[in-house]
């Protein structure tokens, strides 16, 4: 059973790590958009 659980856990660790990387990229992009908006507001 140890190998079975190890395989299932490893699968979800890989998927969750990838989803985490997507979330990190999305957050970075949202910050860039917020910075851009602030810059535009300051100019106006």
């Amino acid at each position: 059973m140890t190998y079975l659980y190890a395989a299932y856990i490893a699968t979800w660790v890989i998927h969750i790590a990838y989803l985490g990387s997507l979330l990190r990229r999305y957050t970075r992009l949202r910050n860039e958009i917020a910075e851009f908006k602030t810059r535009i507001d300051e100019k106006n």
Partner: protein
Amino acid sequence: MKRVFPILAVLTGVLLSYALYEALIAAPTEQTMGDVQRIFYYHVPSAWTAFILFFINFFASIVYLIWRNNKADIVALVTAEVGVVFCTVVLVTGPIWARPVWGIWWTWDLRLTLTLVLWLIYVSYLVLRRFSSSGQTPLLAAVLAVFGALDVPLVYFSIWFFRTQHPQPVIGGGGSIDPRMLHVLLINWLAFSCFAALVCWSRYRLEVLRREVDETLALEALLEPRSPQTRTSPTGSAG
């Protein structure tokens, strides 16, 4: 479309939970290998999903090479990335199954080696896309993807045409499987396919947004008036 995404997400969650229950509890225990055989319900659907994603990558790359279509380029990038994730699952769960059944983690068997090569090809595809700043990157990546996709049928049919240590195909190729096991296998494949579609959709939207932001920032940099220190006269001298 905004309403479809959460509905699909909930359905995928339910399907994945049901597939997990079927794989761990409902599926009959295999007589020779015992419970460790249940790894097969994650390993095989992940491999099939990766193959489908790499084939979509192949067709999207062909479309990009012919029509220079940006959406096709994004689809190619997204399917390669998610395909690599599923291929990683295959390469990790395979050795975990092999250790108790074969007594070794890895062997340089044809199927295993070709799968590792497939993974390396698509990792190099992603590295090319990530670190090359040339305007020709999508074109070079599309060419690499077309050649890389040739490895997919080699991986799939390697156990049909060559004698390898890897188990023979369970569907087609003379293989047979208990109908209850086949049911669990197909449920898991459906669940992982829905999950892959959902992740690809999210990644596609992220990439579209990323490109829009990059274009806007580039446009802003072009339109921004230069500061007096960096302004140059028509003759090239500063001031």
